């Protein structure tokens, strides 16, 4: 087993106002993930390092960080793929609370605003909701979102204007709008129709590149533009 040098952007608000870079030597082999390296630093080298993690298998969405400027999940990133330097920073476009931990409050607000749950006031909770495989296939891809927030760090429009609902929230709104069991589209469309809804997106498309679950949020947002345009036109003709 060899060692590798990684650089971590530290921010300790009680010690210094400015963030600073710190270098650590970590043992690596072919299977060492970035999260393994962070855990090694925390357990063996420097217990003051703060970062989030839980499942270590790309399901919980906690361990998002910037690796050489690109948003990545620590558990799904392997140091073998970085022969040169590795710079680890907190996720971009979110306020940093400490070291690699960011405040995701605004993302959670945007998520709640689009009501990402099944809305069906007429449904009888005792009855199972039936759905055919074809109906499931319409939204399944967009249901794979793990709320990791990598797409928000990849999105320059969110970076320029944090009021933009952003890729994941719109992808989840679209996921429920496409669900045959859901009847909440009329409640979600006013959020999506706003300038800070789907129309702030300029299809840079980097959100879909960095998505660890291949949700393709850029496709969802731009399908949302088609829906928003239809919704607005229909409302216009109805008067």
């Amino acid at each position, binding site marked *: 087993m060899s060692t590798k040098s990684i650089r971590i952007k530290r921010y300790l608000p009680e010690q210094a106002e400015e963030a600073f870079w710190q270098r650590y030597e970590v043992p690596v082999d072919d299977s060492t993930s970035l999260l393994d390296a962070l855990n090694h630093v925390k357990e063996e080298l420097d217990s003051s390092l703060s970062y989030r993690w839980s499942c270590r298998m790309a399901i919980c969405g906690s361990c998002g960080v910037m690796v050489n400027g690109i948003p990545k999940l620590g558990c799904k990133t392997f140091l073998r793929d970085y022969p040169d330097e590795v710079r680890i920073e907190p996720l971009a476009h979110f306020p940093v609370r400490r070291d690699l931990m960011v*405040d995701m409050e605004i993302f959670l607000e945007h998520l709640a605003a689009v009501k990402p749950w099944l809305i069906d006031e007429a449904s009888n909770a005792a009855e199972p909701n039936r759905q055919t495989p074809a109906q499931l296939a319409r939204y399944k891809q967009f249901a794979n979102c793990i709320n990791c927030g990598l797409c928000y760090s990849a999105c320059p429009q969110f970076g320029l204007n944090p009021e933009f609902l952003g890729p994941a929230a719109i992808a989840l709104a679209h996921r429920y709008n496409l669900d045959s069991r859901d009847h909440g589209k009329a409640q979600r469309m006013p959020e999506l129709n706003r300038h800070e809804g789907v129309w702030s997106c300029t299809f840079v498309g980097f959100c879909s590149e960095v998505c660890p679950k291949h949700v393709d949020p850029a496709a969802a947002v731009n399908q949302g533009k088609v829906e928003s345009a239809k919704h607005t036109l229909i409302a216009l003709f109805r008067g």
Partner: protein
Amino acid sequence: MHPNERLPPLPRSWWLKHRYFIAYMVREATVLPLLFFAVCLLAGLIALLRGEASWMNWLAFMGSAPVLLLNGLALAASLYHAWTFFQLFPRVMPLRIAGRPLPHQAVVAAQWAGVAVVTLISLWLFMGGAR
């Protein structure tokens, strides 16, 4: 105050940080040479209305080296923009035939086939085939 309001604004050079963003800005900038071409066409229409002398002047202008160069750039820009647009189209408008999603490559190929057909018809029309 919302926590995000304390974040420094993105620098104007944000798009220089990654080749993906640079490609995006190039895609958006294709509008500039296309705008030049559109203005040329408009000037041509006005020249046509003004009479023969004006029209001959416009033809000479369109044939000059810098204008040919700029319009060549506009052609390349529109082809690049089409290439990016055709790839994005099936993601924005997923098409279904008899309930089955159409493969993305088929949609992209169909769009290029459309370009080929329009180009052939235009060549036939403007090269005197319709005469």
